[in-house]
């Protein structure tokens, strides 16, 4: 009996452990960036793209796995495999680990939704396919000279990723509780002190909480210009003292007197929804509309932006250096920036995230279709928001600010 046990164990284990035979990559990297797109499309047919993206929003999940995947299948014969992750850092970690383990081809990630420090990490490690982005057929609808497209949190994009969406930070309040929200950051800080316990922000490394802290940094520095360009320790130190001073002074007036902070934006949203605090914020204001619809926010939720300006960024899709299905990933990236797909994604009924395209490059009626998209009452008007856009800091500034906050305020 033991022998039979052993044999069957061994067989089952071997059968299960054998890694699936690696699919062949038909085009070398050089060909991918130079070949006519028809060649790439032909090579892509029948491939599966493992698309890694944050998986916590069922609107996004439904859009990607539903209509987007169906279109790609119909039109290009590509199977889109949505892989939801809790944090994009997990994807970066995957690619880094593969690099470390010497896996230079056949990697798990074909396409990833990315920006900021995650992009910087992969790009600086030479872990992305580069040089193709501006050559994609639909890239003509993108304004590559726009600094907010050409730089991703201060890191030059240089053809290593394809812009997918734009986002801009906004604050949310409940109009039933707070009829008149403060219009500037200075007024807001005064409001917090006048209403103890009614505000807090999510602690870094939460993406949104970190963005709120950067607003205070910009306020302390006297505007975004003071923090532009590459990281500079002396400039950082000068501003940090003032900015962290403001945040430390604020602590006694925060929820739980600043003894603890929400560890992610969902916790802050829940505090807001349950009247524990009176504000929340998000880098993607369409979340407020979706949140009202799916029961995360009260129906009287409204959003606004500080008159001093709020940070704006672009998010992208990128292809790792060792992606197993690069041709298909290129086709998907190209399709994502087609006017038709961008319009569908910008529709609040589908997802609602703002387009990354330059509307001036589109035929007038196509551009008009974008402008005519409906807006949820909880979501701030796009033009009002765009008027207040401030460029993001570079990723190095971002790291230094997060680390500084953890050292000084967050303990």
């Amino acid at each position, binding site marked *: 009996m033991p022998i039979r046990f052993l044999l069957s164990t061994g067989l089952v284990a071997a059968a299960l452990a054998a890694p699936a035979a690696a699919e062949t990559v038909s085009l070398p990297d050089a060909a991918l960036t130079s070949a006519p797109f028809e060649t790439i499309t032909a090579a892509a047919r029948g491939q599966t793209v493992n698309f890694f993206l944050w998986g916590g929003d069922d609107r996004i999940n439904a859009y990607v796995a539903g209509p987007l995947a169906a279109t790609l299948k119909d039109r290009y014969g590509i199977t889109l495999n949505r892989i939801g992750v809790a944090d994009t850092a*997990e994807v970066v970690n995957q690619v*880094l680990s593969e690099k470390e*383990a010497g896996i230079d081809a056949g990697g798990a990630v074909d396409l990833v939704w990315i920006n900021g420090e995650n992009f910087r990490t992969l790009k600086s490690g030479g872990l992305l396919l580069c040089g193709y982005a501006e050559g994609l057929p639909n890239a003509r609808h993108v304004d590559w000279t726009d600094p907010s497209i050409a730089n991703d949190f201060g890191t030059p994009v240089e053809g290593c990723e394809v812009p997918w969406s734009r986002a801009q930070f906004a604050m949310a309040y409940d109009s039933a509780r707070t009829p008149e929200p403060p219009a500037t950051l200075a007024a807001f800080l005064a409001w917090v002190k006048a209403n103890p316990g009614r505000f807090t922000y999510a602690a870094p*490394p939460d993406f949104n909480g970190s963005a709120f802290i950067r607003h205070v940094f910009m306020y302390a520095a006297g505007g975004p210009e003071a923090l532009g360009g590459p990281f500079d320790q002396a400039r950082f130190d000068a501003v940090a003292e003032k900015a962290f001073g403001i945040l430390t002074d604020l602590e006694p007036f925060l929820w*739980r007197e600043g003894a*603890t902070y929400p560890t992610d934006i969902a916790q802050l949203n829940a505090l807001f929804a349950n009247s524990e605090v009176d504000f929340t914020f998000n880098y993607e204001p369409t979340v407020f509309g979706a949140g009202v619809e799916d029961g995360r926010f009260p129906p009287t939720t409204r959003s606004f932006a500080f008159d001093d300006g709020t940070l704006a960024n672009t998010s992208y899709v990128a292809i790792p250096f060792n992606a197993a299905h690069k041709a298909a990933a290129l086709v998907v990236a190209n399709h994502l920036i087609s006017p038709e797909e961008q319009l569908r994604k910008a529709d609040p009924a589908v997802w609602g995230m703002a387009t990354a395209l330059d509307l001036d490059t589109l035929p007038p009626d196509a551009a008009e279709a974008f402008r005519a998209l409906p807006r949820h009452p909880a979501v701030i008007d796009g033009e009002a928001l765009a008027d207040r856009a401030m460029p993001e800091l570079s990723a190095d500034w971002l790291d230094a600010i997060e680390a500084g906050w953890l050292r000084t305020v967050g303990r």
Partner: protein
Amino acid sequence: MTERARLVLMLAPTVALLAGLFLGGLALAALRTVGIVPLAGRFDPTAEPWARALGAPDVLASIGVTLWIASAATLVATVLGLAAALLLRRAGGGRLMTLLVQFNLTVPHVVTAVGLLWLLGQSGWIARIGHGAGLIDRPADFPVLVADPAFVAVILAYVAKEVPFVAVVTLAMLAAVGTGPAETARSLGASRWQAFRHVTWPLIRPGVLAAATVVFAFVLGTYEVPAVLGPSHPKALPVLAYQMFTSNDLADRPAAIALSLVAAAIGVACLMAVRRLMSGLPTLKVAR
């Protein structure tokens, strides 16, 4: 086939698998924290990861709170688990009751954590009942139990999960001991409490303590409960280690492994304790 060969064949798969996966994984982890990566052929001995791990902000506080959570959860779960087992026996333990006590044993930790979040938060279900009863006015009036410095909700989540475990082990011990010894003591004039304290308890103690040790060690290494219910700082050791492991900075990774080895080292100490306890009772049967 000789008896000896048969034994070797029966044991070999388990030993090979555990030695390979478990000990192997542990060894690779340890090597990596000193700059040795056999697979990649890297050999740069260094103590930097350990310096980085132990120099991370709040790391000592993290170790401290982790030990606090584990001690408190173990103590409460053991006492309540023991009580539950004794009560179940006294109550004549209907099958349904026993089943209900055991229910949490089958519930994933993350579910319990989420349930407690909705139950005990300052705007949670109990707080709402408090509001309905006119006891509190605003969420802030409700006691801070979630994301609090004492990790109350974290500890309660482990208690809810581990009381059934301790109860099940205790019931098994009680069944193994039988009612004979206690009855003899009673017939000799001992009170109920005396019979338990001086006769039954010494007999079941090794098993109960072994269960307690397993609980303690388990709590040391669990990520999801403090991740859902813990405060922003200090973080429990597994949360801190996982955050460092997935950090953008590759150099953080060996440091994260070093931190998790600290938890493992405490676990090894527990293992030795368990073995001493188990050898104190050679007839312990795990299941019955």
